[in-house]
């Protein structure tokens, strides 16, 4: 999942980026409201985290302009003041949730996971596809209750495909949402991840959870049971 963090305090931004990257998110960052407006309009993000007190363009205005430009990614606002007037204004501008500073990174991760799930149409934190489950909080994939050992990139790829189960996801979309902009898109590393995932999820080749749609991309084909 690719996130954009818009926070003008460099220390807090660094902490957020490092905390989120260590939990497997692809994170891009900026401390400037106008740059954030450009990035949000030009690139696709799965979620943005916006501090309300930005210097050049206020968080509320940034959100309004994104929404006016029909950018529909979930937005989590951070506010230092914690007054309800700010929270309500932020939510009315188009944000989806708020978090008052200071906060634990775990709380932030729980909130943004909930927003990501909601955006993908999943209400519960555990995605179940028959015997195959993916816990978005614990970031654990299990088959029949037995955990499957995945690398961070493999987990991210699978999570994105499961979040968009039944839909064909192009290689470009997967690359864009899983990796930084400077990732080498021509490499076949994605195919390697998919091959490994298939081996780990379906060693006997009985389920075929991930289908290659020739010329278009990949599709997660199992049927959701929760």
């Amino acid at each position: 999942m690719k996130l954009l963090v818009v926070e003008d305090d460099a220390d807090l931004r660094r902490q957020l980026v490092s905390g989120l990257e260590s939990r497997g998110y692809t994170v891009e960052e900026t401390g400037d409201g106008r740059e954030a407006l450009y990035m949000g309009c030009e690139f696709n993000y799965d979620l943005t985290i916006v501090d309300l007190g930005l210097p050049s363009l206020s968080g509320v205005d940034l959100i309004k302009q994104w929404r006016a430009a029909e950018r529909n990614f979930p937005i989590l606002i951070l506010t230092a003041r914690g007054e309800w007037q700010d929270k309500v204004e932020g939510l009315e501008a188009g944000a989806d949730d708020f978090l008052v500073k200071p906060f634990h990174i775990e709380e932030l991760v729980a909130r943004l996971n909930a927003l990501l799930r909601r955006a993908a149409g999943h209400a519960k934190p555990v995605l179940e596809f028959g015997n195959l489950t993916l816990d978005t909080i614990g970031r654990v994939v299990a088959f029949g209750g037995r955990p499957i050992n995945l690398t961070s990139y493999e987990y991210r790829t699978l999570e994105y495909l499961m979040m968009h189960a039944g839909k064909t996801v192009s290689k470009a979309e997967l690359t864009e949402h899983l990796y930084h902009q400077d990732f080498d898109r021509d490499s076949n590393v994605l195919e390697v991840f998919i091959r490994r995932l298939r081996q780990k999820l379906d060693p006997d080749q009985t389920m075929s959870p991930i289908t290659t749609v020739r010329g278009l991309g990949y599709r997660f084909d199992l049927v959701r049971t929760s």
Partner: protein
Amino acid sequence: MIKWLEGKCHSIRYRLLFAFTLLFISVLLLLGLFLDHLYSVDQKQHLQQKLQFKASLFTHCLSSGDTLGIAKFDYCVSVQKPDGQTVFYIYNSLHELAWGSPIQTTGNPTAAVIKSLLNLKTISLTEFSASFWLVSEIANNSFLLLKVSQNQFQSQIDSFRLDLFGLLASLLGLLIASFVYILHRGLQPLDKMVIAIADIASGKSKQIEDEYASEFVAMRDGLNNVLNAERIQRERYRNTLADLAHSLKTPLAVMQGAASENLDYAAYLRVAGDQIRRMDQIIQYQLTRAVKSIGDGAKVNIVQLTPIIERILSALGKVYRDKEVKVILNLERGIEINADERDLMEMFGNMLENAFKYCRSEIAVSVYSDQDNVFIILEDDGAGVSENMRNTILERGERADTSAAPGQGIGLSVSVDILSSYNCRLEVEDSFSLGGAKFSITFPLH
């Protein structure tokens, strides 16, 4: 000089004085010109009547053959010099001099001038060649021209003008002096108020207490209200800072103690985390108390109640979308209360968020009013509040639950603080309809 003038331009006193002086001068000048004109017209009429009388007298003497009478005229004519005496000329229809005063033979008007004068065919006085002329027909096609030099007339006018403008100048002086006095008396309350405010600034007094004219009473009371609100807010900030400083010392002491306890890293992190959360709660609580309005009527506005509740419910509905909370609304429309909108946002935001947080799936919000009060009832279908917790839940910083989620407990205390500042009553009961907690707020309208 320019600086001095610029300085005076900023003074109401000097602006008024300047404006009214200009006004007085303009009015008196216009009045003087008008009176001068009237006098001049009157003098001309008087002269015309005088000449007409002489013309009739001359005609009478001429027709009755009263040569003596004419001789008198002749005599008069003969003593016409110096200028200013009446001179007679008689012209025939060819505009030729038929008879004239024997002496006045030089300086007679030329035939062309006579012609133009006679063509006027008027009996009114005509100004021509530094003299006044009256044309009078005394016999068939014979005209009498009466001429008076303007010098005498002008000297009378000049004398009148001197008297008139002397009088008007004195009147102007009197008016300006009176206006300066009235201005001084009229602006005296402002001067007094400036001194009173300087006394407050220097700490000699706390309020403006002098008696003022009725026009300044509202201003005095308004200033006193602002000063009072400012003083209360200042005290609130001071108390808040003192409370903040004192209340932060305990968690700091705990952390200091933990540092010397030889705790393992995980245990130290736990203690530090607890104390950081406690300090965060203290800061949030004290800051909210410090910035909330005074609520004593000095700084509040008329606000619509239901739109505020609806905005918060809409915002919370977004945040708690996954919980799919059913909200039952029973809102009386158009209720207006005297309050600061931020206070209401803070109060309802905290209380409604608690309802969303602790309900199972349903909350109810009712708002209605009578003549004296507005009643706001918030209910949920959660676990409710036990009997012994109902009083303590309303205490500062107390928490009804035992969950470790940060930020709880403060919201309700802030709400209680705001409610008490507006003299509201809050009751916590069981909700009969939904089975959870019921918070009933009574907000006095007056």
